[in-house]
């Protein structure tokens, strides 16, 4: 069994972005899961299986039923770019409120990307989401109230 399965290959969308987020069951923008057990693809190096030809095939290694090394690298690159963007925003002369809100927004996106993709919460059992979210949401709610009570929310 290899990564590319003949019948699912036929259903693969042509668009690059759609391929990247293709889940293999007629739904787009569903990122591949990581739990499919399958035999080792051959010739796998630290960065995954070497692409056959750089022009056409290299993103095909993603998709299918499970996330590949390439997928994680893409997430990692996006996270790095966002970290750089944070630094760039920090160096601009934005108004305080815009500066802070864009920084917090980027930070939140990074947070949820790591939780969803690296920690696999997006694909995993909902129990894990409940347990983690109960702590996270409660912490946000309570400590926001604490900051409001001590007049620190707009400081």
């Amino acid at each position, binding site marked *: 069994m290899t990564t590319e399965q003949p019948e699912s290959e036929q259903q693969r969308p042509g668009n690059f972005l759609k391929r990247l987020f293709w889940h293999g069951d007629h739904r787009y923008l569903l990122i591949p899961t990581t739990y499919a057990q399958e035999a080792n693809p051959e010739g796998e190096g630290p960065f995954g299986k070497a692409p056959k030809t750089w022009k056409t095939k290299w993103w095909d290694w993603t998709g299918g039923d499970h996330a590949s090394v390439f997928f994680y690298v893409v997430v990692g690159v996006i996270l790095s770019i966002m970290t750089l963007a944070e630094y760039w925003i920090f160096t601009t002369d934005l108004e305080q409120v815009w500066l802070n809100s864009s920084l917090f927004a980027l930070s939140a996106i990074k947070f949820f990307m790591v939780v969803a993709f690296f920690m696999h919460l997006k694909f995993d059992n909902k*129990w894990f989401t409940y347990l983690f979210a*109960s*702590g996270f949401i*409660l912490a946000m*709610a*309570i400590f926001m*109230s*604490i900051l*409001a*009570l*001590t007049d620190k929310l707009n400081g």
Partner: protein
Amino acid sequence: MAQEAVISTFPNPFPRPKSDTGIWSWITTVDHKRIGTMYGISAFMFFLVGGTEALIMRLQLARADSDLVSPEVYNQLFTMHGTTMIFLVVMPLSAAFFNWLVPLMIGARDVAFPRLNAFSYWTFLAGGLLINLSFAFNSAPNAGWFGYANLTEGAYALGNNTTFWVIGLQVLGIASLAAAFNFLVTIINLRAPGMSFMKMPVFIWMALIVQILLVLAFPVITVALIELQFDRLYLTNFFNPDAGGEPVYWQHMFWLFGHPEVYILILPAMGIVSEVLPVFSRKPLFGYPFVVFAGAAIAFMGFFVWSHHMFTTGLGPAATSAFALSTMAIAVPTGIKIFNWIGTIWGGQIKLNSAMLFSIGFVALFIVGGLSGVSHASPPTDAQQQDTYYIVAHFHYVLFGGSLFGLFSGVYYWWPKFTGKFLSEKLGKIHFWLMFVGMNLTFFPMHWLGLDGMPRRIFTYGGDSGWERTNEWITVGAFIIALSILVFMINYVKTWRAGTVAGADPWDARTLEWSIPSPVPVYNFVKIPQVDALDDWWVKKYPETVLHQESHDTDSGQLAPAGAEDVLPMQARVSPEELLGEDHGIHLPDKSYYPLIAALGLAFFGGSLMSAWWLTLIAGLIMLYGVMGWIFEPVNDPEDHH
């Protein structure tokens, strides 16, 4: 077995403990029942300590201008009384019930992490001993159980008194957290097949909610204690006003934990009462889903009321109103529960034995405590009542009249399951009435004293205050409570020697733990039961009553064909001897030294922070050794299998 991949090897100097009898079998046990028993006994010992502290305080307050104890000793007494009763009595007594009953009621053979369970117990015991060890150094904690900053800062609280308190609570917090994670996973993951959440007994529901509260509330006090500890030991500035620190921030942190803690103390008792009342009324619990959701609502809202402990710190009208409203709103789910309990008894075949009396006592006294609680949810009245004996009256009605009555109810109810013998009903009823009368005599007059302006935490008062006569009666009441506890101890000793032997299901009860023999065999269930309904054991025994009462229930249709062989308590009939004959494939986790070593290392580590650095190093190494041995030790020794 050539395919077996070796994951780790570690030189293990101790042979694995094997014996099932003797003192070491208890010290190294990972059996939830034995750990539950040890929790119960330790908590009862601490109860006697905390009770003695209360009696000394009452003797001191019985007379005006008394000098039985000095103000310094009095400060230590009330601090240690509060700390002991909350962290070393009610919480571990609840933990004892969780340990015993969570696996039994959900149909499991043990908790999810047996060695972590042993670690929780030993950490609790070591932490409790550490905090009480302070008496030996004549530096018992003396700043109140809430340790308000900045009175607890190094500059104002000299000596090691408060440091003992901070570190002791930190160790106890780790014990509570470890136990909470364990029970949380156990309840989610080890329910018997078919036991969906809405088929769980209410006690298990309340246990689940309490574990969630513990998991989410204890990190806050951990951080607050870390900050205070750093202030005291390393001279940081968290609560130092000279450097801009805010003492009120300690109050926020403390009560952010402290109010959920109140529900950590009361919800287990509510769960017990919800099990006892249906059995002795011979009726199902009235409005099961309402009781469950009311418990969840109390827990959730409990996180958003903390500032009602701080109305007099001047939070501003908006915040004060918001917290007053949320506090009053919490009376709604509480009221739902009380009406459901009353609805359960209503029209039932009530059997007034000791367990039932304690449960009814719980409902009655908790109503009193709840009502006085609503009275200081209103900020203006709270400002009047703050720091007076009215508050003392309120929280003793909910903690003593509530939690402790509920826990005693559980003791009388489950004693036959724990030990195989009944406690004496006669002595039990004497115990109840003495405790009920003593409790009301002690705490009800405190309402009057408080409204008359008698402050809390004062070591004495003037003879011209007019409080002396009332205080005399309160002291008499306290000794009546002490007498009632003595009666309980006599009951224990007498029935231990010559108690009536109880069968597997002496109360004709409703939940799974009564389907197995008493006392419970070490493996609990020969065969993990299949659960088809709420109160499954009752349904299996009396399918006809359930079909009649709950004909609207879609599940009940499946119960009808249950044959006699399914209905009769098969497991109750299998004797342990019969079982030993054949291998049922029941693998119980082996005993272990390492949880004990890790726990002792942890408490030693905490205590050593007040001492020389090399002691800390030794303690750290002991802890590390315990943890590493634990990691490298397999759950079961390989030899066992082959």
